[in-house]
């Protein structure tokens, strides 16, 4: 797999804005971002209200995903180009999610909304209308999603990559620094995890670092690229960004995202937790 199979740059998007068969999708946590302006022709997916089950802590199921994509006017053979704010966290999460439900023809806009804005490219308020489709999803691809039992078993065996900020890793903070620190679960990290904040995989403008830089980054932090890897963060969206770097850009065959992440692990009874720097 090459980088161009999974990533497009802003010039490419600009040149293909009117192509049939290509659907731009903005995915944000802050949905007011889309309302203030989005790339022309882009539809919106709301990370919170449309991709999450409203009651249980889980994703919408296969039927729910099919209904969502049908409603958005996305067909099985469309090329979906995802982008969003927060350095593409939620877009990367949606990318992983599209893959989870079997949509193979999907790419990320490198740098997402931030790069687009910093380039002073056009944003519009017009909301496109797309005719409904009959989207059909596959069952979830278990090879890219990790659950808690597998994570506990992976301690000291598989690579565990903690992509939160250094202070979250050591236990000093329980959430990123732009959020009030009101969380109640224990701080720290999963024993044997390596600390490689997601941000190290990205440049200041939100674009991904080169394959060579990425490979050096993970290897220097003690990740054995020949072994299976599980990435986690606080709730699984920053780790989708790292899953993308490891699985899609570097092409490692066995990389899973643990979407339960620290909000689940740090609340489990009886599991080991390590504090301080990586050991």
């Amino acid at each position, binding site marked *: 797999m090459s980088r161009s199979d999974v990533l497009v740059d802003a010039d490419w998007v600009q040149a293909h804005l009117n192509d049939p068969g290509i659907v731009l999708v903005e995915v944000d946590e802050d949905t007011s971002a889309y309302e203030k302006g989005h790339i022309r022709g882009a539809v919106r997916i709301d990370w919170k209200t449309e991709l999450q089950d409203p009651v249980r*802590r889980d994703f919408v199921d296969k039927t729910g995903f099919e209904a969502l994509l049908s409603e958005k006017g996305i067909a099985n053979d469309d090329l979906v180009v995802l982008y969003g*704010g*927060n350095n593409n966290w939620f877009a990367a999460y949606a990318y992983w999610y599209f893959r989870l439900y079997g949509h193979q023809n999907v790419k990320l806009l490198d740098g997402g909304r931030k790069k687009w804005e910093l380039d002073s490219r056009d944003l519009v308020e017009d909301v496109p209308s797309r005719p409904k489709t009959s989207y059909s999803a596959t069952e979830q691809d278990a090879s890219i999603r990790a659950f808690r039992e597998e994570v506990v078993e992976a301690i000291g065996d598989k690579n565990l990559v903690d992509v939160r*900020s250094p202070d979250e890793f050591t236990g000093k903070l329980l959430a990123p620094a732009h*959020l009030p*620190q009101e969380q109640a679960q224990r701080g720290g990290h999963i024993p044997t995890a390596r600390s490689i*904040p997601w*941000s190290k995989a990205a440049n200041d403008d939100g674009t991904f670092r080169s394959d060579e830089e990425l490979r050096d980054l993970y290897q220097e932090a003690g990740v054995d690229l020949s072994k299976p890897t599980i990435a986690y963060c606080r*709730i699984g969206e920053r780790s989708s960004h790292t899953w993308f770097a490891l699985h899609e850009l570097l092409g490692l065959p066995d990389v899973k995202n643990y979407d339960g992440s620290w909000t689940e692990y740090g609340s489990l009874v009886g599991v080991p937790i390590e504090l301080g720097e990586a050991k």
Partner: protein
Amino acid sequence: MTDGCGAPAQTASLPATVDLANEAVIQGTVVRGDDAVPGAYARLLDATGEFTGEVVTSDEGIFRFFAAPGDWTVRVLAPGGVSIDSTVTAQVGEIANLQVAI
């Protein structure tokens, strides 16, 4: 439902749910001349230069972080290749204020 790690809207005053006694707040305004700059990116870097968080400035040009006590750098990015670093010290129970002119 789990809340995301995305940055909330940057309000002019501290959100009512936040107890300042427990927080080390870093906040500031991005200005160009006399005008506030909305839509700029403020990145919080720790004492080693490691990225910690990022928010987009509000319509009033405001950004805010809930940090830990210590020395921090705020890097402001804006169109036209603007990238300006400001250093600041955060303490629990206090709001460290910055004004960043671009």
